[in-house]
């Protein structure tokens, strides 16, 4: 971890870097916006449920963007929904993170050619931190995505957001 290395022998006092401490706190309680779009959302719900248990990594759904830290774009982003997603994203306070889950959110997926109603990749409207491939991704893949996001947060600097 690196965080508890410098513990004094008599206990009670921990010496740590402010940056490390804040990053550790942030990455251990990523609250995601309770939000699902298509079949990927079913897989995301399965990941939150007891078999895969998202909560053990500190990720729980929060049903308001104003108190959320992350948003998982789980499914096909239609043009109609894209406007709403952008507004939700703007309502989330900084620092905020985005996981793009599944082929549709990454690049349009099976709708890439004839999808007159589909936005070909959610990164056309909001900046994405982690892309999770799959159609839909297995819960393990989504967990891997979360771990990658946590890795990213761990190495963040207070002075500037890296992304």
């Amino acid at each position, binding site marked *: 971890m690196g965080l508890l290395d410098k513990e004094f022998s008599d206990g009670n006092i921990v010496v740590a870097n402010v940056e490390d401490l804040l990053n550790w706190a942030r990455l251990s309680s990523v609250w995601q916006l309770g939000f699902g779009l298509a079949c990927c959302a079913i897989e995301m719900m399965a990941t939150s449920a007891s078999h895969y248990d998202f909560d053990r990594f500190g990720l729980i759904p929060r049903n308001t963007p104003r108190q959320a830290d992350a948003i998982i774009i789980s499914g096909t982003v239609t*043009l109609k929904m894209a*406007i709403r997603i952008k507004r939700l994203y703007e309502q989330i306070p900084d620092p905020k993170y985005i996981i793009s889950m599944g082929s549709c959110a990454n690049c349009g997926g099976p709708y890439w050619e004839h999808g*007159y109603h589909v936005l070909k990749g959610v990164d056309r409207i909001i900046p994405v931190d982690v892309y999770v491939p799959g159609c839909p991704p297995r819960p393990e893949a989504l967990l891997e995505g979360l771990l990658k996001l946590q890795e990213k947060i761990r190495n963040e600097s207070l002075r500037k957001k890296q992304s």
Partner: protein
Amino acid sequence: MKNAEEIFELLKQEFGDSILSIDKDTPTEPIISVEPLKIHIVSKFLRDNPELQFDSLMCLSGVDDANGKKVKDAEGYDVIEGGTLSVYYHLYSTVLRHKITLKVSAPREDAKVESVENVWKCADWHEREAFDMVGIVFVNHPDLRRILMPYDWEENSFPLRKDFKVPEFYQGMKIPY
């Protein structure tokens, strides 16, 4: 219980020239063609006649027949001129257990079909979808707005028409891949 020909004869007696033809050469059920601006009164008759009692509209579909002439427009895209747009009505009587399929065809440039919304209530959203996707205008429909596409989607742009061209942008978002 009546078969399609008996129903056709009954309609022909009642409405004469408004009932155009019966097409029996189909892989599924025979299809009765009706004048687009007479469909409301025909539907009401089909529902209320004690020998027919079609109380259920199983499905209402808008179809682009694409049977017009293909022409290139100013920008070099294929556009269909002339021909027809059609609406199919699949009816079922839960009392007498018989089925029938109706069809109306309206000219592509001015596709007006009477609404059957006050005969079968479920036609409301079906007709809105047919309007949204292929651009058939249902006369006397109480609330003919787009149902699936955004309300500010380009007017006269109907995605399921065979000559539909995907717009470049919607609200600043690029649509093509």
